[in-house]
């Protein structure tokens, strides 16, 4: 039944609607694919029985004529989303065997629309990482390998499990989250489509918090249209998240395939960094040419504070994380390591439960918020953040969207950058600006590098203008005609 796992989400929904196959059939095909791909370490928890039950319920709904927009489609869920009655760990030992008694709003929206859950997807611990190597469950492996090579590559992070599961056809689509690039960089590394919507488009309620002013959920999928279908279901105002925007959700799929003629697309000159491989520069030029052929007007724009986005992010995100992660004290849930007294118990539980990168970021965050340093670091970073957001405001007075590379490299080998935090942070150089400004950003697979690895291009839009991104993304996807798939070796 492997052909059922190779379908796009849209084709699968069409097949379910026309009763070409049942949800139980396509779900069983996926369950088998997931079991056969354990060497990729994409799923930290498989829920086959629940999946089959949900599939049967979906088939019953469809038989009685009340199927929802995603009815019967098997999906993977990043382990950052709390799922009722199903262990949710955020990739961390400190959360232990935590089993939520509630459902995150985003996943509840997917189940409302009929989707089926295959299991929980691996990720960097608390979404802090760009290679999936900080996960307490061990790294996810990218299904892509260099031509003729067998070195294990990272799928990127933090949504590495989501990226691998989508690329290796272990689900029809997946949920993911993006705080500094955690949807878009893995999408670029695995030849998949990922969109981080406008901050506030998806509710953060029930998603384990990393940096609350930056975190945003979004989908990963194999086509632009599939990503649009998923985002439509995931989005919507939620009174339980006070930063959730009280706006209507458009039918994002209706924007895919729309003409992009006359749209003005900006190319920010500051994204031409010295260290960028010539292949990525060439792909960017190709993307510009594709959009020109589709009738877009290309405009050079300036985002002068781009180079300061990453350092500002590495103050803001750890500061918020150190505050958010203060809740893991071993008292009410999760890991507790008994000590001589209360403070000793806190310190031992947290030292034992958090991994190295998370501890490092908690220390940075605590340091920049501590007395005497708050103004010099934290307040300064918030002012630079405003400068970065203002840059985008200026640019969007002249253009409708921006086109940039997604990541400064293709997928790299597991272990290659894990000893150098700053080198790892530089993965997010093109994506992190978007989180700081709260804007939507999408990565679209656009080509392969000389060693046969996928590369993505990023589109950045105005706040709440995901529709334009879906139109432009559809145009790029059509022009790039990216059909390469990883050769199955697992």
């Amino acid at each position, binding site marked *: 039944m492997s052909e059922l796992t190779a379908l796009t989400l849209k084709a699968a929904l069409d097949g379910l609607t026309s009763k070409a196959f049942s949800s139980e059939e396509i779900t069983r095909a996926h369950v088998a694919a997931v079991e056969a791909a354990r060497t990729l370490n994409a799923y930290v928890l498989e829920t086959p029985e629940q999946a089959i039950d949900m599939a049967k319920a979906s088939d019953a709904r469809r038989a009685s004529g009340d199927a929802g927009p995603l009815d019967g489609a098997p999906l993977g869920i990043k382990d950052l989303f709390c799922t009722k009655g199903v262990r949710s760990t955020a990739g961390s030992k400190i959360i232990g065997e935590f089993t939520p008694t509630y459902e995150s709003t985003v996943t509840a929206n997917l189940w409302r629309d009929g989707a089926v859950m295959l299991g929980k997807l691996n990720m960097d611990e608390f979404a802090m990482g760009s290679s999936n190597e900080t996960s307490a469950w061990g790294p996810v492996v990218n299904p892509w390998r260099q031509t003729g090579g067998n070195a294990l590559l990272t799928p990127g992070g933090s949504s590495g499990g989501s990226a691998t599961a989508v690329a290796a056809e272990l689900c029809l689509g997946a949920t993911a989250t993006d705080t500094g690039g955690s949807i878009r960089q893995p999408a670029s590394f695995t030849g998949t489509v990922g969109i981080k919507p406008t901050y506030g488009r998806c509710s953060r309620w029930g998603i384990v918090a990393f940096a609350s*002013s930056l975190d945003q959920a979004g989908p990963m999928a194999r086509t632009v249209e599939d990503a649009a279908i998923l985002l439509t279901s995931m989005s919507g105002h939620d009174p339980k998240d006070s930063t959730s925007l009280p706006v209507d959700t458009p039918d994002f799929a209706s924007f895919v395939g729309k003409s992009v003629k006359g749209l003005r697309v900006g190319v920010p000159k500051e994204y031409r960094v010295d260290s960028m491989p010539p292949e990525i520069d060439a792909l960017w030029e190709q993307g510009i040419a594709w959009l020109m052929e589709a009738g877009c007007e290309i405009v050079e724009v300036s985002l002068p504070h781009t180079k300061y986005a990453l350092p500002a992010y590495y103050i803001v995100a750890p500061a918020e994380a150190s505050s958010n992660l203060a809740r893991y004290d071993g*008292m009410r849930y999760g890991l507790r390591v008994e*000590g001589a007294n209360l403070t000793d118990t806190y310190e031992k539980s947290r030292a034992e439960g958090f991994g190295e990168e998370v*501890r490092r970021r908690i220390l940075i965050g605590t340091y920049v918020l501590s007395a005497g340093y708050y103004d010099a670091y934290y307040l300064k970073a918030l002012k630079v*953040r405003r400068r970065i957001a203002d840059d985008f405001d200026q640019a969007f007075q002249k253009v409708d969207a921006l086109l940039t590379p997604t990541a400064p490299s293709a997928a790299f080998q597991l272990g290659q950058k894990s000893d150098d935090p*700053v080198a790892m942070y530089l993965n997010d150089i093109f994506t992190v600006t978007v989180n700081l400004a709260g804007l939507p950003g999408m990565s679209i697979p656009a080509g392969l590098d000389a060693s046969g690895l996928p590369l993505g291009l990023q589109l950045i839009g105005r706040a709440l203008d995901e529709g334009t991104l879906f139109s432009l993304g559809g145009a790029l996807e059509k022009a790039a005609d990216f059909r390469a798939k990883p050769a199955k070796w697992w």
Partner: protein
Amino acid sequence: MAIDAATVRKVARLARLAQPEETLEKLAGELNGIMNWIEQLNEVDTDGVEPMTSVVQVPTPMRADVVTEGGDPEVVLSNAPRRAGNFFVVPKVVE
């Protein structure tokens, strides 16, 4: 301003992270590497710039001050590392 082992010890204490003495020097080196890279923010002129704490321009919504959920101790305690009856068991706070 360089971070030394004493600073790491103090910050780790503030963050309630047990940090073995022999790890402090190495960690100080790593944190200095990161903070030195962050220092480039000082190149940016931010005079008169309003700090940006949130990208959301919608005012914080108000809600009615009513109980929406609760009254289910089994749900609340279902993940407790230690419990006794309807209580969490925690280390002694007051001697």
